């Protein structure tokens, strides 16, 4: 899965978008309690979306009902809209020493700074090299920026256009539009806060 690798935006825009995910691998003693700790650390820092474990795979939640949805669930994915929270989260995860692989998808510079502040060095890094091939098949950049917020590509180009049109017609607010778009994303990696900003910028562009 490269589900969060190809998120697009400028340095400033991406400060409002990072995803944290835990991937248990191999025999991990007391795994459930460790995932509860991971979930609680994430919740403490007010994510804008999360993915919860249902029948050993990830399922979406309604981000507007975060507390209720995650009360008795284990989270593996948490999406945030403020990069300033990252260093504290890394420090708390280091302190918790869960023994589980934890990855951050976000601005490399900020992640590295967070690691340095926690007195640690990052383990492995993966860059996107962008898009090759028949790019003429692709819609304009703002729609791509929205589409790539769901790594599995389940937020279709047509849904994005439709929702933006509905907002333009005053039938829904940008915030409601963003939450409508979050619905197809099953991993909780879709960032409704960034989506709202993208809708607003698309409205400005006309």
């Amino acid at each position: 899965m490269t589900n969060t690798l190809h998120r697009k935006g400028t340095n400033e825009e991406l400060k409002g978008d990072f995803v944290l995910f835990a991937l248990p691998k191999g025999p991990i003693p007391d795994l459930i309690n460790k995932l509860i700790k991971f979930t609680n650390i994430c919740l403490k820092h007010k994510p804008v979306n999360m993915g919860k474990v249902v029948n050993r795979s990830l399922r979406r939640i309604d981000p507007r009902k975060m507390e209720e949805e995650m009360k008795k669930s284990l989270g593996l994915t948490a999406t945030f809209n403020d990069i300033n929270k990252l260093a504290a989260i890394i420090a708390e995860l280091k302190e918790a020493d869960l023994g589980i692989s934890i990855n951050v998808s976000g601005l490399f510079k900020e992640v590295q700074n967070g690691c340095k502040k926690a007195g640690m060095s990052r383990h492995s890094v993966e860059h996107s090299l962008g898009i090759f091939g028949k790019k003429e098949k692709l819609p304009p950049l703002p729609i791509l920026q929205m589409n790539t917020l769901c790594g599995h590509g389940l937020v279709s180009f047509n849904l994005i256009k439709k929702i933006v049109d509905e907002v333009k017609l005053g039938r829904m607010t940008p915030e409601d539009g963003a939450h409508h778009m979050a619905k197809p994303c099953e991993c909780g990696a879709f960032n409704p806060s960034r989506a709202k900003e993208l809708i607003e910028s698309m409205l400005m562009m006309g």
Partner: protein
Amino acid sequence: MKIDTEKCVGCGNCIPFCTMGVIRIENGLGVVNEEECVECNTCYRCLDPENLKPSFVRGIRKILKKLRLRHDAEHDICPTGALTPPELEWPRSIRSAFSDPTVTHDSTGVAGRGTEEIKTNDVTGRIGPGEAGVVIDLGRPGTGVFLRDINKMTMALAPLKVSFEDHNPLTVLMADAKIGRLKEEVLQEKVLSAIIEMKLEQSEIISVLKTVETMADELDTVISVGVASRCESDGTIPHEKICRDAGYYLSLNGKTNLGFGHPVEIEEQK
């Protein structure tokens, strides 16, 4: 995806949810282009069925039309529950396994399209010092890809000094991994996207990327490419200089494995 013609009232709510844009209204009913449908089930998962009687909905719509009134329903409902995911048989079942993240691959036991790349590298050590991982995500973003196109890419890459990741579902579909050839019976299947995942020496990164670039122009889709490596002890990323020196764009953002995982052997010793 199947649309039950007895139930469908042609509201068109499913059309924007279709990841491939292959649902249309014909003679007042929703129709799926099955050749292009990737069985991602997004329409089915996102549209809540109201399970109203089709005759009731049609009747109401006729009355509203006569009165020159229009009812804008919620976007994410199917008024009559007409969407019906079919039982998929091999090889069509591949479509769903790659395109619907809630479906687990029979071959790998992993849901979605790929394996874990660097995400568990702190535990598995899959990509070690001097090595790199390259992931080629075909069909992404939002375009989809036929496996016949993936086959062209894997066969072009196989002669290079790469090893396809054993546990990747595409590798499992290869008839002959040495030459990168996929099984004949899967070639006409289409998926939302699929990832070719390889491990190679860092010295081979550029030759692989050049091949991907050349082949990409011959395929009827788009490709998102990623490169990964294990960091040096000071946090330096080995592939960064290699790619930049060769003129490749590198993203500002991406994935970082923080290194919190305990290698399996260490955990077992504990």
